[in-house]
């Protein structure tokens, strides 16, 4: 469909520029992470990531072309389809990497949990688009969004895909807070959660905890939980102020950073570029977040603001959880770093998220 020229004029180049910058850093780091010293060459994954980037651009542009108000119509059907797909994965799912996550569609494998994050954002956007009650939502007003979120979270959790389940819950709470949940209600909920979860955890026996933990966390090394985190912290810490320089990281040469070009790519980056490099990277992520928040606050209507905020919260949660994981502040949950980690599905879904943000920002002047 032809894009209205007036719309195209409002394409958010700032946001787009930051995205491209991040992806560029990612490709550089992937090259280094998979660089073979003995053969003096990269592994070709960096090139592949570049192709994913091109596909991602197409996905991003496509995500800007439609009128986002259609979310109102497609949210629930889309949600339903994803729920069914997650069910299929649960029952007949293809077993990959020790957990049931993929559906083979012949030409590519579909990871429904990747889309589940988007499904919850769309569904909540639809539900919360109307004016909130004057005094804000009470918990009992929100049983429906909760009922929408719970099955997605549970189905991803038992895949087991702990990382995605955590993201879904975080995104859910961010959105209902933004949508107008009474702060007091939220505090009650938070207090209750903080009291009961550790209590329940406390009552479990050590081996039960370990079992739950290893079940939910197939990425963990059975031979001493935390070995990878130690190695990852060594990589980050040994970067110091200025890093060891491009292609000079030693930790990732040793092959004991698990998934050094996917989930642990930040460790490779930090080792080679040091604190100064990390500062630049964090600044890019911060800038992207600030620009996106600007889009939220300037959106034309509630539905646009909520949609923009939803996709931003997916993005932001990924960044924070991944960096906490790599620096040893959080257990390993297998979450990629948006736009940097190697991988097609992560790349494309994050580009779609950026596309939706630009979509909302482009249409803030239309009537």
């Amino acid at each position, binding site marked *: 469909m032809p894009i209205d020229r007036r719309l195209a004029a409002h394409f958010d180049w700032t946001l787009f520029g930051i995205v491209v910058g991040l992806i560029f850093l990612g490709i550089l780091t992937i090259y280094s992470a998979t660089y073979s010293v003995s053969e003096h060459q990269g592994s070709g994954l960096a090139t592949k990531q570049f192709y994913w980037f091109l596909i991602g651009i197409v996905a991003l542009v496509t995500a800007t072309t439609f009128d986002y108000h259609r979310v109102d119509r497609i949210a629930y059907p889309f949600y339903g389809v994803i729920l069914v797909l997650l069910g299929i994965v649960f029952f007949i799912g293809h077993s990959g990497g020790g957990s049931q996550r993929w559906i083979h569609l012949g030409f590519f494998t579909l990871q429904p949990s990747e889309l589940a994050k988007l499904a919850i954002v769309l569904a909540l956007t639809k539900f919360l688009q109307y004016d909130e009650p004057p005094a804000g939502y009470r918990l009992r007003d929100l049983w429906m969004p909760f009922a929408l979120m719970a099955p997605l979270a549970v189905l991803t959790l038992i895949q087991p895909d702990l990382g995605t389940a955590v993201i879904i819950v975080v995104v859910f709470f961010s959105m209902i807070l933004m949508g107008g949940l009474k702060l007091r209600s939220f505090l009650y909920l938070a207090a209750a959660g903080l009291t009961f979860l550790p209590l329940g955890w406390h009552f479990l026996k050590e081996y039960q905890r370990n079992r739950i933990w290893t079940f939910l966390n197939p990425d963990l090394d*059975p031979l001493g939980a935390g070995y990878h985190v130690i190695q990852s912290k060594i990589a980050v*810490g040994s970067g110091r102020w200025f890093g060891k320089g491009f292609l000079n990281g030693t930790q990732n040469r040793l092959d004991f950073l698990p998934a050094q070009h996917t989930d642990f790519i930040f460790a490779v980056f930090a080792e080679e570029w040091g*604190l100064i490099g990390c500062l630049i990277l*964090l600044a890019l*992520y911060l800038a992207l977040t600030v620009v996106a928040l600007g889009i939220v606050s300037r959106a034309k*209507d509630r539905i646009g603001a909520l949609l923009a905020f939803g996709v931003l919260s997916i993005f932001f949660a990924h960044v924070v959880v991944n960096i*906490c994981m790599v620096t040893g502040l959080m257990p390993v949950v297998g979450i990629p770093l948006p736009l940097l980690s190697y991988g097609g599905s992560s790349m494309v879904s994050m580009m779609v998220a950026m596309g939706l943000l630009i979509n909302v920002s482009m249409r803030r002047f239309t009537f």
Partner: protein
Amino acid sequence: MISLSSQKEVPPEFRYRTQILLAIVAVIFLFLFGRLFFLQVIDGERYTYLSENNRIRLKKVPGTRGMVLDRRGQLLVDSRPSFDLLFVPEDAPEPENTLRQLARFLGRDEAELLKLSQENKSRTPFQEIVLGKDIDWASMVAVEAHQLDLPGVTLRTRPRRSYVESGMAAHLLGYLGEIGPKQLKTQKDNGYSMGDEIGQFGLERRWEEFLRGQSGGQQVEVDALGRRVRVLHEVEDVPGYNVVLTIDKDVQQAAFEGLKGKDGAIVALDVNSGAVLAMASTPAFDPNVFARGVTSQEWRGLTTDRAYPLNNRAIQGQYPPGSTFKIVLTVASLEEETLSPTQPLACGGSLAVGNRVFRDWKKEGHGSVDLHKGLVQSCDVYYYQLGQRLGIDQIAKHARNLGLGEKTGIALDDEKPGLIPDTAWKKRRFNQPWYPGETPSAAIGQGYITVTPLQMANLMAIIGNGGTRYRPWFVKKVVSLDGSVIQEYGPEKLGAAPLKETTVAFLRDTLRDVVTAGTGGSAKSQIVSIGGKTGTAQVAEMKGAYVKSEQLAYALRDHAWFVAYAPTENPEIAVAVLVEHGGHGGSAAAPLAKSVIEKYFAVRGEPPPANRTLAGTEGDARAN
């Protein structure tokens, strides 16, 4: 809910909320930056130190594999500690110098060690190179004593599999091998990693998940020369479960001894449950060689040897059953009442069918022969005629009832089904009808028919117990170290085609007479009454001439069969013996069956010894 227009202006509270969010985001980023500052600047020095030389290493400690015991608790397979010699070149300032020193201390060839350490070009840095597996005591002491002169050289203890009486039950027990790249892909989720051992064959493969323990590991901080400074974190390994077999070690030994110097197989089954008492196959291999690690030269030797030592002839060897197949026709005739057992047929040494002449092994013939005499004297002409009366489809039906022509279903890999032909098969296979002229050779177990020794032992068990077909099984139970039973196995009926009382009784007396007064005389025992049948399976067709097997080249000699059960009054044990190119069943195979049966009755009276358990082990906390 009142449906207001969704095209509302953004309420001001959204603006306000984004401002709050901005503050929260800023705090989070500050927090992340603070964490990085802490790691990279405040602790940076320590991490830099740790990153040099890969100071933190993961040492895997494989779990000790469970023991394998016989039915009376006697040890068949155990694990013992052993030492491997490892080298990490990155830990040595001058790797070649270290290796030279090492060669001097151990009296090994310098060039060989250098070659070993350079072989693996694609290894990642700090990956250990194995310079020697299971090194001897003297080498170990030498390495320990000169630790300071050998930077980068370390010893690793590993449990190593040791098979008692090596080779005795090699094909049943199987062997271990290092996990291959393909296996690793499929087994990764089960916690296997590079360099792990995994059951590759036989029991070791099939009961892998029970036998295998759980690996433990240590995170170790090492100094610049690769020497351990301290253990940061340790995960205990968990030993595997013990497996108790239905095999009797002494009976197994008798079977194996009997086959020494010959190629063949012996299977002994418990008639009333299908439990395997012994299963031997020769030539055998030494599974201890695999435990040590097979050199490619040894592997080539094992796989290219003309006698195929890796083949389990008991389940993979498909041979014509020869005269042992006459038991099947006897059963068919009695069950179908084709021919009265007392009705005599004439045997003049040969039978003409169409334009072909089928010979009897006895040139001058057996004279007037009834069913009893036919089996006792193994008269071919009688069975040619009986076969013609039954027809191939009747023969095939009863052969299948007795478990031939299909896999027995024993829990071992690559069992072969053998072949029982009938008209339908001939049509499928050759698109031809079954010719009447093909029936006589089928009737005496030649032609298309093939069976495995296990099937023949199973057949004897079926006629011994009156028609019940069990799945042969050889694992009695799996027990944990504290003796609690994890898994128990028992007889599994696969089919029951009850034989008539009269059939069972006829076979009992006749098979006894085969041994006391017929072709199976060398199986006669003073201890117990044995009933059985000899068989001689032709390998090469001798046109016309009666040549003694001994006069033929080895590869052309007949296979010798003997199948038996005992005691005849109430059979307990069924045995099948096959000796490849052994010549005559009566002389080559029958004595072997006798010694296996006698051994069984010699040890049977003993009460089982108290259950073996390892002292000083704690309860097993593994999940099931």
